[in-house]
């Protein structure tokens, strides 16, 4: 998100899901779309059948590869080089949108100079993709306008994730692919309400509507709205909070609906940190691996038992409606939180229905200003929607970028924080399956989904497997500097030599005990996509002697 804020001024997806059919070219980079965002995967395949050209950039041979015109199989963690290489070709061959750059952008010359550091020979060397293929992809993207870019965690979950996002944004600006139907830069949100949680201020540095906490005017605005003295110092991110808890500097934690003991990097360390807390309150629908460590567990209702709103990946606020009564004595999250606040003597938490909370959100969040439940009853609204008369915004940056001018940023290649070496010769990258979701707290309760995939399968290239004496289905041990896990091997050519891919859906194989907690300096996102590991076969348990 920080990358898009720097370049465009807004971290959200620029375009709408349905205008993808207008795209003449799609670049899907660092997204296993058909598995993680199946409906958008369907849209992509439909667009391809109707003539849209598709470029897939992914180290793994994901299902979408079979639909692609060009597959750039770059090495994990080399996205900046790949994209800068493509941009160099576009500039060298004069395929950029000069009018758009002049009218709408700034800092172009400075950026252009930095491209000379990315000759195709170097790009080929670092990414492992033949230079001619990179050039071909660059031409395809630049000459088929409008062109849309889609990405997910494959771009962001690196120590240089912000750089990756900036590279993507540079590419879109260079070719004038911003602000019109079928174009844009579209980060696909992984969770149902990641967008909304960010929008309403569940972030350490901003109030609702991305209003910075360290801005004096904004602080005063919220102090008068909430009738409380507010802290002007930005807080810590989740990935910083865990180490602080480990050091004993953070003593109490109130956690709602998350499972960091499986989802966070170096999760052994995370579980230790959670155990050290003085007070650990967890609010969830199941007794997750994290909730088992809590001092107090509060039963929340699932989405089927409450009213509210989710904001989707295209910034559309939609109504969630209560279908059934709360299971057992569970309560909606908002009710529980308000109860705690009220019992601490706080005012301003006397809500009786989520619609009243939305009224307050609208009153302090300019981009949600025109959103209320009676409008949402009829249809979902895409923010920015500042007034009740405003119809919502399908495409961002149509005339001006949110920050005014689009800002080109020159980039330097920085390798992943941990590269393979003699001791840990393989790269571990994390992936997802269509049939499970995140840490599996919901999907693993569904028997049918488990018949498709019920345990971790470590995707390993046949060459690597043979060298290690591993057959398909063998039990193997995967070891990194931070931990070791066991799982079955899935020998497959979809994974390139030197790389293994694992999900983190299964508590029995807690993949994130292996991953590297090294963070991107700006966005504080951990490097899930590159960790150095070694793999060894576990000797078959000796058969019982007769």
């Amino acid at each position, binding site marked *: 998100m920080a990358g898009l804020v720097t370049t465009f001024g807004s971290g959200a997806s620029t375009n709408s*899901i349905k205008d993808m059919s207008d795209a003449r070219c799609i670049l899907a980079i660092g997204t296993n779309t*058909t598995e993680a965002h*199946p*409906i958008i995967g*369907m849209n992509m395949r*439909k667009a391809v059948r109707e003539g849209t050209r598709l470029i897939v950039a992914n180290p793994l041979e994901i299902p979408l590869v079979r639909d692609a015109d060009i597959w750039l199989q770059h090495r994990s963690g080399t996205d900046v080089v790949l994209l800068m290489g493509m941009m160099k070709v576009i500039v060298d061959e004069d395929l950029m949108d000069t009018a758009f750059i002049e009218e709408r952008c700034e800092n172009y010359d400075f950026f252009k100079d930095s491209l000379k550091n990315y000759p195709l020979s170097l790009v080929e060397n670092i990414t492992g993709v033949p230079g001619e293929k990179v050039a071909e992809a660059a031409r395809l993207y630049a000459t088929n306008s409008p062109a849309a870019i889609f990405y997910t965690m494959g771009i962001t979950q690196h120590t240089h994730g912000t750089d990756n996002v900036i590279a993507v944004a540079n590419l879109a600006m260079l070719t004038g692919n911003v602000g019109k139907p079928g174009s844009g830069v579209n980060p*696909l949100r992984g969770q*149902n*309400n*990641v967008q909304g*949680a960010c929008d*309403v*201020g*569940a*972030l350490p540095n901003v109030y609702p509507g991305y209003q910075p906490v360290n801005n004096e005017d904004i602080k005063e605005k919220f102090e008068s709205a909430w009738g*409380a003295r507010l802290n002007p110092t*930005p*807080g*810590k991110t989740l990935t910083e*909070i865990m180490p*602080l808890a480990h050091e004993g*500097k953070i003593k*109490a*934690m*109130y956690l709602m*609906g*998350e499972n*960091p003991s499986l989802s966070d990097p170096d999760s052994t360390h995370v579980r230790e940190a959670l155990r050290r807390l003085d*007070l650990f309150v967890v609010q969830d629908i199941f007794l997750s691996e994290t909730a*088992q460590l809590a*001092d*107090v*567990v*509060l039963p*929340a209702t*699932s*989405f089927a038992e409450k009213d*509210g709103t989710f*904001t*989707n*990946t295209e910034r559309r606020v939609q109504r*969630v409606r209560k*279908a*059934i009564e709360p299971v057992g004595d569970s309560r*909606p999250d*908002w009710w529980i939180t308000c*109860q705690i606040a009220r019992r*601490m003597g*706080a005012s301003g938490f006397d809500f009786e229905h989520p619609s009243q*909370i*939305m009224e307050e959100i609208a009153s302090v969040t300019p981009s949600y200003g025109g959103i209320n439940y009676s409008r949402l009853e009829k249809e*979902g609204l895409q923010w920015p929607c500042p007034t009740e008369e405003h119809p919502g915004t399908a495409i961002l940056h149509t005339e001006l970028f949110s920050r005014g001018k689009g800002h080109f940023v020159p980039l330097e290649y920085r390798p992943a924080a941990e590269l393979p070496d003699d001791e840990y010769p393989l790269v571990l990258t994390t992936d997802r399956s269509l049939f499970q979701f995140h840490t599996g707290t*919901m999907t693993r*309760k*569904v028997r*049918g*989904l488990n018949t*498709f995939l019920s345990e971790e399968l470590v995707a390993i290239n046949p060459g690597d497997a043979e060298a290690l004496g591993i057959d398909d289905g063998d039990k193997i041990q995967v070891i990194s500097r931070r931990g070791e896990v066991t799982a079955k091997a899935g020998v497959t050519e979809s994974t390139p030599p030197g790389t293994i891919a694992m999900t983190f859906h299964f508590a029995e194989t807690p993949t994130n005990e292996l991953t590297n907690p090294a963070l991107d300096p700006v966005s504080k*996102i*951990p490097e899930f996509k590159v960790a150095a590991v070694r793999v060894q076969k576990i000797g078959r348990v000796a058969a019982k002697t007769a």
Partner: protein
Amino acid sequence: MDKITLTINGQEVKATRGMTVLEAAQSADIYVPTLCHYPDLEPYGGCRLCIVEIEKMRGLPTACTTPATDGMVVTTESSAIQQVRQTSLELILSTHPCDCLECHRRERCGPYDICLRHVAVTDRCVVCPANDNCELQQVADYIGVHELRIPRDTMPRTIDTSNPFFDLDRNRCILCARCVRACQEITGVGAIDMAYRGYGMKVATFGDMPLMDSICRSCGECMVRCPVGAITPKDTVLPEREVKTVCTYCGIGCSMYLGVKDDKVISVRGDEQGPANQGRLCVKGRFGIAEFVNHRERLTTPLIRKNGRLVKASWDEALDFIAGKLGKYRGDEVAVISSAKSTNEDNYVMQKLARAVLGTNNVDHCARL
């Protein structure tokens, strides 16, 4: 949009250029029987039931594949049409258990009633999951079938029950190819196709393997479009009511209807008006919700750790305990972790609690994970 006017059964019909004759008729509420047409699939012309007469056109063109043009004069009912489509319907019925469709008692028949026509229990409409929601019943009632002049092909066909969520019963299949087209046109997967020829024709995967051994992604888009009871969910309880909401899995925001019976979620249906999904759902959305919502491991009461073990507590006890303890920490000693699974309202009050009550900006969620 380019508007055109045509005449159907003497009635003036306004339509948009690009519509087929069938779509024009449907837009004016004129019923034309069809089994292979589906609104979001390409025209197919497979069932031959939507034949019409069009002035200055030879023969009986199928309405679903004929583009509507300005000034066109269409007739949807005539003895010639009826004669041909009745024969087409008989051909469809010759491979479908159909004796009930000709029977005047169908409405009153229970599954195990004694049948004077000797229809096998397994062949009866009343035992089919699609009963009363079957397009073949509707079409047969409209066109009217009195007797089959073609001998029925009673060769048993294979039933594929390998998928955990839905079955493919080829005995009931009428080969309209909606499922095959949905799998290709809607999902782009192409797990199934029409295989073999003549009476041997059937819906099959590559290599005629069970669905579970194919590239099927189990989204169920085929099932949604099946006009008969050939592809049906394993769980076929009908909901008492449906509630429109948004899926809880990924960030696409698919609009869906949760089906409710006895205060339990029992089914999920895609919302065709959904701006993000237009009715489509994936395997998790369609089949992965009811079971976790109603799961026996759901937390149903607050728990407090006492002597190392989590024991049941009342809400008052748990909330007062938390409120009493939380106030003791300085702002930077507390962290609040909110959730990308919860609603905007839940997240808003959570960050407000952190900032306005606990005095910290240490509030975050899993956006980065």
